């Protein structure tokens, strides 16, 4: 029972990191029709910046989370403004372009931070164990779960309960009609792209508490985030959340039950979803 409980919490906390990494990707795909393959690289960049702020300069962990998100957000926005903007309605070119940026960002990160992997880090206040029904459990992971829940609620509120969210959803359904109503969709798209990259950076710092930061994270996280989007369904916060948590649980339980097939349970889940319901668990019908 204790093993089960521990796996459950581990799975959920890992799933929250996956949700954070996948939500921006999913929303940008849904809203702007852009598959941003540099999303994983932005996650990694956020992780490196967060590490530098928290460990190298000995600053507050929450500041590290914010700055990691901010740097990723600004870089993402720059890519969108300078490059992606000119490739409107050319999905293949957008994909290829962002794939080029994976290489550029990864190599620049290696240039700045070196190839040495960074260990997990956390705020001293968050280290330690908490007793849950007699089971000691690390506080960091609980904080990750809490952060995931908070971000999910904020994003969901933004998506379903605000004017901006309504514009986003309207733009998703009919871009031309939305623009015809006099709405500056480009500005909203910019905001969405910035927010997505920001969340990716935050995810990088949060995820670093579990996995550390290293230079092949850009592609690793991209792959996992894409699986999350496929499984959950693209274009909504709920989809990313359900995909993230399912993949987190499947991966954690898979690793503890069938250690010899550690990586494959995740892919298996993806293949099954594609064969059964290609639009994902909570996907909007395309």
């Amino acid at each position, binding site marked *: 029972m204790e093993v089960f409980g521990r796996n459950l919490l581990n799975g959920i906390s890992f799933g929250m990191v996956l949700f954070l990494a996948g939500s921006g990707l999913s929303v940008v*795909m849904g809203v702007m029709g852009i*598959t941003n393959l540099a999303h994983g690289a932005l996650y990694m960049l956020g992780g490196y910046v967060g590490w530098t702020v928290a460990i190298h300069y000995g600053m507050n962990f929450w500041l590290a989370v914010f700055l990691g998100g901010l740097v990723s957000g600004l870089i993402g926005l720059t890519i969108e403004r300078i*490059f992606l903007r*000119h*490739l409107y309605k050319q*999905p*293949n*070119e957008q*994909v*290829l*372009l962002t*794939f*080029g*940026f*994976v*290489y*550029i960002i*990864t*190599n*620049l990160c*290696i*240039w700045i931070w070196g190839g040495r992997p960074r260990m997990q880090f956390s705020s001293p206040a968050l280290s330690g164990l908490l007793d849950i029904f007699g089971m000691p459990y690390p506080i960091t992971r609980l904080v990750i779960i809490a952060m995931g829940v908070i971000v999910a609620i904020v994003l969901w509120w933004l998506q379903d309960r605000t004017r901006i969210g309504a514009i986003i959803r309207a733009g998703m359904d009919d871009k031309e009609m939305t623009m015809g109503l006099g709405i500056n969709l480009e500005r909203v798209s910019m905001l969405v792209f910035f927010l997505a990259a920001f969340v990716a950076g935050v995810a990088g710092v949060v995820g670093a508490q579990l996995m550390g930061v290293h230079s092949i994270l850009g*592609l690793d996280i991209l*792959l996992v985030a*894409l*699986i999350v*989007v*496929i499984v959950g369904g693209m274009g909504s916060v709920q989809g990313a959340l359900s995909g993230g948590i399912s993949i987190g649980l499947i991966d954690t339980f898979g690793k503890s039950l069938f250690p010899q097939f*550690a*990586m*494959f349970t995740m*892919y298996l889940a*993806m*293949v099954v979803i*594609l*064969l059964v319901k*290609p639009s994902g668990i909570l996907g909007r019908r395309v």
Partner: protein
Amino acid sequence: MAARGSPLQDLITRFLPWIGAGVVLGILPALLPSYMQSIWTKFLIFAIFATSFDLIYGHAGLLSLGHAAFFGAGGYAVGVLMLHTGITSFWVGLPLGILVAVAIAVLFGFISLRVSGMYFLLVTFALAQLLYSVAWNWLWINSPGMQGIAGIPLPDLGIPSLEWNTIYFYYFVLIFFCICFYLVYRIMNSPFGYALRGIRESEIRMQALGYNTWLYKFIIFVVTGAFAGLAGVLFAYFNRLISPVYLGVGTSFLPMCMVIIGGSGTRIGPVIGAMVIIFVEYFSSLFTPERWPLILGGAFVVAIMYARGGIVIYLSRFWKQIGYRHGSIEG
């Protein structure tokens, strides 16, 4: 319209590029030092690989992020054959490599062609990474104590008294390159090739015309898998080592770069692209090996933003201008 120049001039402008390419590919490498010959060999192998990618991306319009799966599968087939049975015969290795690549392409095609657009891209990416992690974890297909298979010998052709050297191997690869180039040319100019380009432009319209577009896409997926598998077989013999890296997304990125930089949907674009990438890689490895991904990514971004048609457009424009000047091509 009739050509204004004499028939001889007409022939020259039409065939000179091919004669030039023949001289450059057929004679030049023989005069170079042997390390340059192996760079040329690598270029030809990647030209086959890039051509196969262009077949699916440039013509059928399917952007696959997992094309290296077939390349690596072909290479692994040769490696595993050598490792477990000791067979080094080329006449067993080549069919086996292509067969394995085709089998994987059939399997992946069934899964990934269920979805289209961006989803296709994600699924091919994930499937290739799945293969990558299989190769990483499954000890049976790795040499003892390492990830990958080392010590793959040059192919045994069954000809006695044949001593391999770099230039022989170069010509050996050149033969396969020419065969592939010709086959791709034939595929592209067949009704099948036209149907593929129709699917790229408008799949719904092709369906309305009564084409089974799924089948067309599936067939081209498998055919490109076979070509990529052939490139992988040659690469395993060339590199003497095959490792999970050659199944992964990093290797898939190379033909993508070559096709985009060279010019997609053209006959010689991928070849030119492969030439540029392989030679720039070689020269950058002399000066700043650790900045190579940055150069590659940067060149790729610039090509997508500012030179969408690829190098081929500029070359053919240049060549046409010469044609105008000598009056053999009508505008």
